[in-house]
């Protein structure tokens, strides 16, 4: 049924939610292996999207349409698979730091990560160190990602890293940061493992850190 998958990928790329839904439903009805639908239909489409965004051929709203279509396909397939069999590139806890209510950047990263196959646990905005700590304990993610838009709130990122150290968990998780005022220098200063300048590169960064 490779034609399905080709068309499914194309529909993801063009962000046609309804088409993705009906093609996924067709594949399920035809008795395809749900994991194949994900690995050969949905993810290849999203990989193209990621590459095109990176090269400037696609814009953010188009990428988000693709991500939305991908998610709709996943929602149909997921119930058919045992949770442990759902392909996942890894777990990422993500949130905007304490005092900061900006979440558009964080949500963008979150969608890009999910589209790249990561399981994302979103702890929301105004997330203090304890909230990140709790999520690390509960979900045991490979990566935590912190976001800040303001120069006045970016300093809070360091507090989370310090708390993870105190709790002896710093070595168990990679810490990545991002947001308008953030830079590689700042990441080095506060002892983060990585910095992603934009949503597109966050998934690449996770892949590199979890390799």
């Amino acid at each position, binding site marked *: 049924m490779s034609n399905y998958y080709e068309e499914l990928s194309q529909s993801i790329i063009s962000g046609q939610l309804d088409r993705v839904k009906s093609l996924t439903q067709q594949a399920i009805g035809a008795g395809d292996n749900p994991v194949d639908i994900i690995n050969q239909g949905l993810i290849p489409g999203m990989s193209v999207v990621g590459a095109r*965004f990176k090269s*400037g051929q696609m*814009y*953010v*709203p188009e990428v988000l349409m693709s991500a939305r279509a991908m998610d709709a396909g996943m929602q149909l397939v997921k119930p058919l698979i045992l949770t442990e069999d759902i392909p996942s590139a890894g777990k990422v806890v993500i949130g905007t730091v304490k*005092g*900061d*209510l*900006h979440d*558009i*950047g964080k949500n*963008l990263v979150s969608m890009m990560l999910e589209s790249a196959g990561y399981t994302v646990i979103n702890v929301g905005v*105004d997330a203090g160190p304890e909230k990140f700590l709790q999520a690390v304990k509960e979900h045991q993610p490979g990566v935590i990602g912190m976001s800040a*838009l*303001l*120069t*006045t709130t*970016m*300093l809070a990122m360091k507090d989370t890293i310090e708390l993870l150290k105190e709790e002896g968990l710093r070595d168990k998780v990679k810490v990545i940061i991002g947001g*308008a*005022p953030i*830079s590689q*220098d*700042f990441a080095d200063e506060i002892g983060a493992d990585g910095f992603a300048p*934009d*949503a597109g590169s966050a998934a690449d960064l996770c892949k590199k850190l979890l390799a």
Partner: protein
Amino acid sequence: MTLSKSQYVRANYQVNATPQLKMLSDDQCENILNGALEVLERTGAEIHSEEALEIFKKGGCWVDGNIVRFPSHLIEWAIRSAPSRIVISNQKGERTLFLEGQNVYYGPGPTNTYTIDPFTGERRRPRKSDTVRAAKVIDALPNISYAMDCGTVMDVTPTLSDVHAFQAMLENTNKPIIHWGFGIDQYQDIIDMAAVVAGGLEALQKNPFILLYSESSPPLRHSAEAIDKAIFAAKNNIPIVYTPCTFAGGVAPATMAATLVIAVADSLVGLVAGQLVRKGSGFVMGGLISTMDMSSTILSYGAAELSLLSAGLTAVARYMKIPMFSTGGCTDSKVIDTQMGLEAAFSILVAGLSGANLIHDCSYMEYGATSSLELMTMDDEIIGMVKRILEGVKVDDEHLALDVINKVGPGGHYLAEDHTMAHFREFWSSSLINRLRYDGWKAEGSKTMGQRVKEKTQDIINNHKPEPKPDHVLREIQAIVDRAEAREANKQ
């Protein structure tokens, strides 16, 4: 016999004393404002401050958890209650910035996380010494009317970056200052320092030389830090600039009109808070409004829409008779280059034509991430040029000069006429823009604009001596900085 027009009177003769740019008609402004009123009454805003929620509730808003819905009449009351004019003094108490009507003043921007060193060209973290340099350059440039910190200084106690930057500005310029703070404690430090300079809190309130600055988190979301600062400013009777950063496609719909609606609505939330605390407290509407670049996701500081939206927002502010804090002289470029020049020039011109009272960010490079004193120096030149354009064309007997035209006659020249002598100084003369003949330019070293800008900036930093403040004032300011350091040390 000379031609004289003094023998007649005229009727219905209209004059454009300045060029005219009105991005929106009154009807369109009303439409945008009504849109914002509808959003605040129907959708409401998310408020993350207990104190603010209490104030809004008492003021007659519908409070449902964190969501506050505002009855239109309350907002309309607040618009009328806020002063249509705010006069800001310099640090010597001389009234200098008349934020009223369509008076235009330009200045730099705050809180960049990087700065370009004007001596080494290095892009690096801002230090306190960089704000010292910035203040000197601000003090020296004639078309820069007020100071902002030009970067968050990072070589001091991190939570006192704001207080140290304020000290650096007080010590190196006497121009008015617009300044931010991490929180209420730092705002208090800043007001205390300003009161020392002004000669007491009451003198500062009567003749403020500072405007406090606070940023909300659009769309329709106000952090405790943001709204509490608006409340604090009103309580202390110091005017505030309340500025949402609204960018089309990201935190607002992708259309210009809707982006204006969100920006106006978010400003009005800050306005209502301040007016409920103190009727008539000084409020300046912000601020930063542009598009999100859909490839890089940056908030663009060079987009055509920055100018378009800023002029639109200014029109609405003018319609409401509330002073306006707008944006110009900034760029997405990373270096001192041609993109920088053209983006800065367009935004300075359009913001000036729009009649915004305070136009900030004449120092912002790299979509706001980096500050550049060289850009500020170049902006000063662009502003000079734009101010000349804003003077418009005078049309009267003296300026029509028909007698002089008749006297010189066909084929003559006007270089040696008294009339020329009387008026040629109205031409704007450049200081950085090069108009030498080729040989002269070559003789002076064939320098590019970038080189000339760098030299002028360095010369100001090396040689400009701002008028110093009395020793006892400097000591009292230092004591407040020390007090703040002790407080922050205790918090650790």
